[in-house]
């Protein structure tokens, strides 16, 4: 092992770490606001990447039909409630978001020549399909049991994860997909060969982290989410709807997931079940941050990425073992240093 190899491994580790950092942030956010350990986070990565890949082969991505299906279910549930209470204005909103939007999107996708669209448009369409699944998932899966104990929310998360993986196999097939890179630019920095895509990943991650910071510090919605995270009952008494907070959180989580997928699809091959492992590594990072601290989770994610890169050089057969064993000393250290908080059940 010489300096050059260390540099190359470092570059690889930081690129992967940047993706893990994004997912870790999403996991911390979802847990803080809704107490859900969001296992399907990784599936949004796979769905985002594979939806883009399908569009590039000129097929209308099957995920849009999932979106339509989820929208119809949500419209029936919310529309029924609105009808009962006679709120016609709300009914229009429900129908607009849950029916008109997915169907309009599906129609648009069927009409457009997907293969010939510019890359940016394809990426935007992929996000437009996958991201709304976040709030819809919250509406259908978590909102009815929003006040359930953490353990039940976790079990439901596992169910949602298994369901999404199964749908992924149905939509995308068992084989992997790879998308062309955003740019073919390459830079020679000393001994390093830095590809344009690596820079895209790192810059996009940093930009997203800054944007999230500004969102939480400066906007009213961000502040509402923070308030809900700190004290759910208190926030509710101040007029912050927990449903809105939940939907907004899941929107952000789905956006982060789908964007991560779009970013890494040109670097690696993505399969319908790739997301779980990526999400799990993000989860290790989130645990390092105690499922509470954003900066520590981000640093932890880079650490996980680097550890992964270096262990793949020294002991490739034990790479995953090494990465996931990291969680044990971290948990020990956390349980020794932090005081224990009783769960409010």
């Amino acid at each position, binding site marked *: 092992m010489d300096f050059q*190899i260390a540099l*190359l*491994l470092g570059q*690889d580790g930081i*690129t*992967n770490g940047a*993706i893990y950092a994004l997912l870790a942030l999403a996991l911390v956010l979802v847990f803080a606001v809704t107490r859900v350990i969001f296992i399907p986070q990784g599936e949004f990565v796979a769905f985002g990447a594979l939806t883009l890949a399908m569009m590039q082969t000129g097929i209308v991505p099957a995920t849009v039909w999932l979106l339509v299906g989820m929208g119809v279910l949500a419209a029936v549930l919310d529309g029924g409630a609105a009808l009962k209470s006679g709120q016609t204005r709300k009914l229009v909103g429900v129908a607009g978001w849950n029916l008109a939007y997915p169907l309009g999107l599906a129609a648009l996708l069927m009409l457009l020549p997907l293969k010939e669209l510019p890359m940016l448009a394809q990426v935007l369409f992929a996000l437009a399909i996958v991201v709304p699944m976040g709030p819809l998932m919250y509406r259908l899966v978590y909102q009815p049991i929003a006040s359930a104990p953490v353990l039940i929310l976790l079990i439901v998360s596992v169910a949602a994860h298994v369901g999404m993986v*199964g749908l992924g*196999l149905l939509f995308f*097939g*068992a*084989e*992997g*997909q*790879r998308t062309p890179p955003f740019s073919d630019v390459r830079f020679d920095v000393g001994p390093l060969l830095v590809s344009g895509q690596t820079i895209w990943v790192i810059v996009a991650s940093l930009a997203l982290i800054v944007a999230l910071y500004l969102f939480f510090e400066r906007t009213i919605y961000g502040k509402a989410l923070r308030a809900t995270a700190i004290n759910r009952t208190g926030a509710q008494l101040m007029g912050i709807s927990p449903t809105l907070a939940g939907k907004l959180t899941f929107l952000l989580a789905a956006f982060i997931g789908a964007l991560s997928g779009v970013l*890494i699809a040109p*670097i*690696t*091959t993505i*399969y319908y*079940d*790739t997301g*779980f*492992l*990526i999400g799990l590594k993000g989860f290790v990072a989130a645990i390092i941050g105690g499922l509470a601290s954003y900066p520590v989770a981000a640093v932890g994610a880079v650490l996980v990425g680097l550890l*992964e*890169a*270096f*262990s*793949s*050089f*020294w002991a*490739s*057969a034990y*790479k*995953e073992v090494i990465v996931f064993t990291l969680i044990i000393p971290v948990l020990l250290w956390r349980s020794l240093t932090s005081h224990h908080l009783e769960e409010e059940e």
Partner: protein
Amino acid sequence: MKLKHTLMAAIGLAFAASAVHADINVGVTVSATGPAASLGIPEKNTFALMPTTIGGEKVNYIVLDDASDTTTAVKNVRKLITENKVDVIIGSTTTPNSLAMIDVVAEAATPMISMAASARIIEPIDDKKRWVFKTPQNDAQMATAIIEHMTNNNVKTVAFIGFADAYGEGWYEQFKSVAEARKLQIVANERFNRNDTSVTGQILKIISSRPDAVLIAGSGTPAALPQKTLKERGYAGKLYQTHGVANNDFLRVCGKDCEGTFLPAGPVLVAAQLPDSNPVKKPALEYIAKYEAAHGKGSVSTFGAHAWDAGLLMAAAVPEALKKAKPGTAEFRAAMRDALENVKELPAAHGIFNMSPTDHLGFDQRARVMVEIKNGTWSLVK
């Protein structure tokens, strides 16, 4: 008048058939979901193309999915045997599943034809494994083909990178033992996971050991990642893959980075390029034509052909067994086993079966060819 006769005959046959319950029931368990889905799906599709009558008897295929999971595979086999009273079991897709099924089929004295590759499924033949047959080539046969090609092309040192599971481990063992005998030096031995997003570490280590050639032992599209990383890092030596990558999705994902790669494969992969004198050509082309008629051009894979071969074996054994006993009985199952063991010179999509009491695969050199990836397609190395 003629029609009337035919009708009468048909009705008569139908009555005769129902009187003795002579339907042949074939129990199938494949890994159509889970990690082995890319192998299991074409296999599952293949059963739909198999003959529905053999030797004048109706054949029912009961196809179950074991989700690439060992416990489910065993559960499926128990269900097929006790509830569906099957006469023969075909499955499963993976080696671990097939190994776990042996105890169950031996206990119920039901013959089983596996579609998994490992030689351990059928060797050594003992009281239990006498009921077990398989259709894919042994890894050792494939490893020998690779090493022959390497030594013929002046390769002295080779690096190995394989899946961190039974597939990669099994290949390394086979490859190592043959390589040592042929004085080929293995300079690096690395592992990666099917779902890895990066193999940079392993590839850097391999490149720093300066091998003449690299062998990548993975199956399906995941095997493209090490190859792409090797090219990205400027590796210029020879590249070898295993027959596990022989489907068109691999070519699609790997693209131009796979040009010039060598791999051993069943002849079905390059059936159209085989000389007409090759007895494998006809059954292989027949399978491809049937599969592509149902699933579109370019959809065929060598994995589905293993299922097809299992069907051919069964179809060859059934008429023999029917002479001795009626389907649904223990005698019929025993007769099926004996008939399978006596299959001789049966041309199939992957080779020519010559079963014997000591060899329950029955393939020889004719069951493998070396293939090069040229202009984004498979090309037979002559």
